[in-house]
């Protein structure tokens, strides 16, 4: 059974249709890259999975449970249960600036999961070690580089033991020399078979790490396939045009 099932998802901002009946599925342990030009609706699609955007129609099911069924949202409590299966990493990190790194990691589990406190400290330190920031536990986010902030944000999302991790352009706000350290952490997670949906402009990452790539344009999924198919032999004109545009920009850099 697919862990994420999306059917006929519809959303507009005023007269602009941002999602035009989008459907796709994500299997357990799959890494999905979502690529496409700015304004193609890929962030909106991702954000609607965790109810940061409200859709007008369609169905979203997470592990078989309906978050939205034909445009009808689940009841508040159930909705919270469903979205709690997902973690999210934002383009702008969204760390809590008034809390230290370790407090950022521990805040939500302490408030939400009501378990003994000692467990959190150990898990937080383990996750910081995993993202290579053990020495930054007691530092405030303002003292970190962008790449370090994003790694903390990933660790913070992992604290809640999500079944699925969503990334909304995780490296777009970073200086080019800092994207590598974040992508490395993500590759590590992919190796551990974390189910991930990654909205990204990093074509190399999509090609090397993703199991499947979705290409979105103007609120539609134009084409999807394995990285080899989509990058090596794109079938649709729009895909070809987008890829040649991005590849040309890349070589011009």
């Amino acid at each position, binding site marked *: 059974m697919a862990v994420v099932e999306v059917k006929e998802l519809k959303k507009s901002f005023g007269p602009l249709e941002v999602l035009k009946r989008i459907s796709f599925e994500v299997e357990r342990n799959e890494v999905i890259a979502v690529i496409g030009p700015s304004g193609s609706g890929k962030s909106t699609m991702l954000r609607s999975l965790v109810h940061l955007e409200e859709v007008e129609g369609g169905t979203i099911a997470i592990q078989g449970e309906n978050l939205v069924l034909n445009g009808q949202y689940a009841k508040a409590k159930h909705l919270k249960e469903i979205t709690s299966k997902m973690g999210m990493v934002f383009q702008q990190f969204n760390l809590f600036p008034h809390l230290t790194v370790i407090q950022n990691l521990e805040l939500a589990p302490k408030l939400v999961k009501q378990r003994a406190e000692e467990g959190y400290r150990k898990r937080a330190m383990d996750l910081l070690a995993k993202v290579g920031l053990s020495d930054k536990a007691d530092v405030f986010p*303002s003292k970190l580089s962008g790449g370090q902030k994003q790694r903390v944000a990933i660790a913070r999302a992992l604290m809640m033991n999500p079944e699925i991790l969503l990334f909304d352009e995780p490296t777009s706000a970073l200086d080019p020399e800092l994207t590598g350290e974040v992508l490395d952490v993500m590759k590590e997670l992919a190796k551990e078979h974390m189910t991930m949906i990654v909205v990204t402009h990093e074509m190399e990452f999509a090609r090397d790490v993703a199991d499947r790539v979705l290409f979105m344009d103007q609120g539609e999924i134009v084409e999807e396939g394995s990285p080899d198919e989509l990058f090596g032999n794109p079938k649709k004109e729009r895909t070809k045009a987008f890829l040649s545009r991005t590849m040309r920009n890349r070589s011009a850099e």
Partner: protein
Amino acid sequence: MSLDYLLTILKPMLEGAQATILLFIIAIIASIPLGFLLTLAVRSSIKPVAWLAHSYIYLMRGTPLLLQLLVIVFGLPLLPVVGDYLVLDRFVAACIGFILNYAAYFAEIFRGGLLAIDKGQYEAAQVLGLNRWQTTTKVVLPQMFRIALPAVANESVTLVKDTALLYAVAVPELLHFAQTAVNRDFTIVPFFVAALIYLLITMVLTLFFKWLERRMRFE
């Protein structure tokens, strides 16, 4: 100018300063929480509540504090029927005036602090599973107070100086005793002494807020 003279005028002036400081403390302790409640009211989804709070803030910020004090101390008792019940001790009446006025200013300061908090903070909290109350108390308010702190400090210093308005409603305070001494002794010295005492109070206040800002720097 002798030291003896300074000591004689200092005693009543320091007594006056007590009224000044007492008013300051009462006003700040009451108007900050009240201002915060007003901020919440302004942002309320219940339209009449938000509208009332807006109008209140507009009224309090749009008219002189001196006028408000005069209304409360001398005006209200003149109202027909209820007036007799509104004759308050002048110091108490003045405190109420300051609290009502400063609450409006603090409300605006806190509102600014809330607006300065990035939407991403709410989104991160939501995705991590925090409910509204947890988001407000653990994520939003600590940041709001930090952002508002310099403006709160500034407003507090203004409040110290505004206490001199007690003079106009005939509550004996620091400036009142200075003026009395100037008239009686025909010298400018008491004014300077008053200025020094105000400076001392505002200096202590400024140092306190600087300390608080350093403690809350998040670095």
